[in-house]
């Protein structure tokens, strides 16, 4: 029913440095439907932010290698920088992680916002600011904040302000990169709910929400994609990923999250032994194999993306062995 806003096919982007290639994004495939919130989760260095940078702004040493990224039918990997700039804010927009640094410290927010939209050929007239004020009301900020400097706002307020600015031209697609991680739990909840509200009211189209925190994704995302060390691990509907993970990494990740009601003395959680591999000139094979309890010789080959359920895809040779039984603790992953 719903058309795809974004179609990503086997996208590869490496950091080219003197020592060789850091394969930070190595063959990722997924689609994003109109009006959908897709969560991307993984540890630091898994390639989730590289994915965002590849789509938005590729600065050296980050280099596009191969694959497709079609935004509304246009392959944004192939178009010129000038053409892409026209699409920014209108078709594709990003809510940055460090909202605290996203403002100009010497400009009042009103001036900053005017300058920004002028770049996109929009006149910052009274009608425009009426719209801004309506949006501010949504996030429970007074219109007077427009005449303040960014340092006068608290962290949570800045994050909300930057959400409004990023979405002021009603973009078809936004990337929210770790927007909740620097915030307190109460602001976190507000910002996450806000993202859903912006989508529900039709202000933004589809959303990619990047975070390391699976429990936030569970609250707002419709589908979740898990990445590990630059490779695609698993994608599927939120409930399916959480209750029936098929990739050993997803399973271990969920098992390592402490929940309210779980105490050390009653139920010891298992972490994952070891650390992610270095991505510099990394060879073939599943990158989780060094920490994986299901590892066999077959894992020396890079696993294929396979359909394992309804809208549920996984890249693991052993997905059939995993998740057939529904136990909650990941004790067996503790290793020896």
């Amino acid at each position, binding site marked *: 029913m719903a058309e795809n806003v974004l179609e990503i096919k086997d996208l590869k982007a490496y950091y080219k440095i003197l020592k060789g290639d850091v394969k930070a994004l190595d063959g990722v495939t997924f689609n994003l439907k109109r009006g959908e919130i897709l969560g991307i989760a993984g540890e630091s260095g898994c390639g989730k932010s590289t994915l965002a940078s590849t789509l938005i702004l590729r600065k050296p040493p980050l280099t596009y290698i191969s694959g497709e990224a079609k935004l509304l039918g246009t392959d944004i990997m192939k178009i010129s920088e000038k053409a892409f700039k026209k699409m920014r804010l209108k078709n594709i927009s990003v809510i940055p992680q460090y909202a605290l640094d996203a403002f100009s410290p010497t400009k009042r927010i009103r001036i900053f916002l005017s300058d920004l939209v002028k770049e996109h050929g929009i006149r910052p007239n009274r009608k425009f600011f009426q719209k801004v004020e309506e949006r501010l009301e949504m996030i*429970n900020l007074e219109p007077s904040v427009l005449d303040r400097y960014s340092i006068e706002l608290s*962290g949570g307020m800045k994050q909300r302000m930057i959400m409004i600015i990023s979405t002021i031209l009603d973009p078809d697609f936004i990337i929210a990169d770790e927007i909740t991680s620097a915030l307190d*739990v109460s602001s976190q*909840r507000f910002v996450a709910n806000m993202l859903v509200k912006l989508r529900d009211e039709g202000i933004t189209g589809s959303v990619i929400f990047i975070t390391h925190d699976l*429990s936030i994704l*569970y609250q707002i995302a419709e589908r979740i994609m898990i990445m590990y060390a630059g490779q695609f691990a698993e994608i599927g509907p939120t409930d399916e990923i959480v209750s029936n993970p098929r990739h050993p990494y997803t399973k271990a990740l969920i098992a390592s*999250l*402490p929940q*309210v009601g779980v105490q050390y003395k009653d139920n010891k959680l298992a972490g994952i032994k070891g650390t992610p591999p270095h991505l510099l000139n990394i060879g073939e094979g599943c990158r989780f194999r060094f920490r994986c309890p299901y590892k066999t010789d077959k894992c020396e080959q890079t696993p294929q993306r396979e359909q394992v359920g309804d809208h549920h895809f996984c890249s693991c040779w052993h997905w059939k062995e995993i998740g057939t039984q529904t136990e909650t603790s990941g004790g067996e992953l503790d290793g020896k």
Partner: protein
Amino acid sequence: MENKPIMKVENLTKVFTSGIIAGEKTVAVKDVTFNMNQGEVISLIGESGSGKTTIGRIILKLLKPTEGKLIYNGQDITHINSRHEKKDYYKKVQAIFQDPFSSFNPLFRIDRIFNMVFASFMKGVKNRRELIEQSLESVNLNPQRILNKFPHQLSGGQLQRLLIARALLLNVDILIADELISMLDASTRIGVLNLLVELCKKNGMTVLFITHDLNLGYYISDTTLIMYKGRLVERGDTEKIYKNPVHPYTKMLFESIPEIGNKWDKEETFLPETVIQDVKTFYRENEGEGFKEVEANHKVLFSE
């Protein structure tokens, strides 16, 4: 043995003054009282700016309290100031901070970093190598592989465990862990946490675990302290607080933790600003009640 308080924090207040002549005053911590028992894991939970780190720094003698007392092992240590006295204190009270990457001298190998512990705290000790290896092994690190490395060659989880090993070497009474694992990934941090609790129980060490993460606080601690705007608003057994939160701020915290398997109420319009109003109303309704016990080992601040 279990209930012997090793550290008593009494009516602690810290006011920061900014500006030289007519300074603006910020009350960072106000009238905070709690005990730390031997072998207990205490989590100190609060949002940014709630004063949790200030308390940690006062206990570490990095800041002087404006008012109040610190009683360690029956001795008033609020005003110790000389180098000698402080050194004796640091033999027993140590801290681990958030960022493991900046907690080590990048120019020194790990063995030198460990040797420096002996140089400054335990000059007379002979079997240094043996003790170092013991403490490394207790945090599941291989001494042969670790000792000749520089800090940048190790991962965050390894460095964080090294910090714990360094504290173990001194056989400390109190360990203050300030946002210990917030820089680590989900899969590695549980390992570090499990280790910390295990060692604490084994050696009878007291840990003050400062965090903003309620789930982690619940997972490891015996006692929970909740801070809000410099005040200790709820204090008691972890389970009691989590099952029966009384203070409006604590309630709000529990409602907003994201949890797998339990979705937020979408209909509810949630505003972080309203918490201040709720707290004020709560204080007004319970005027004059003060810091009162609601059940055994569970106290709540009812009014300012």
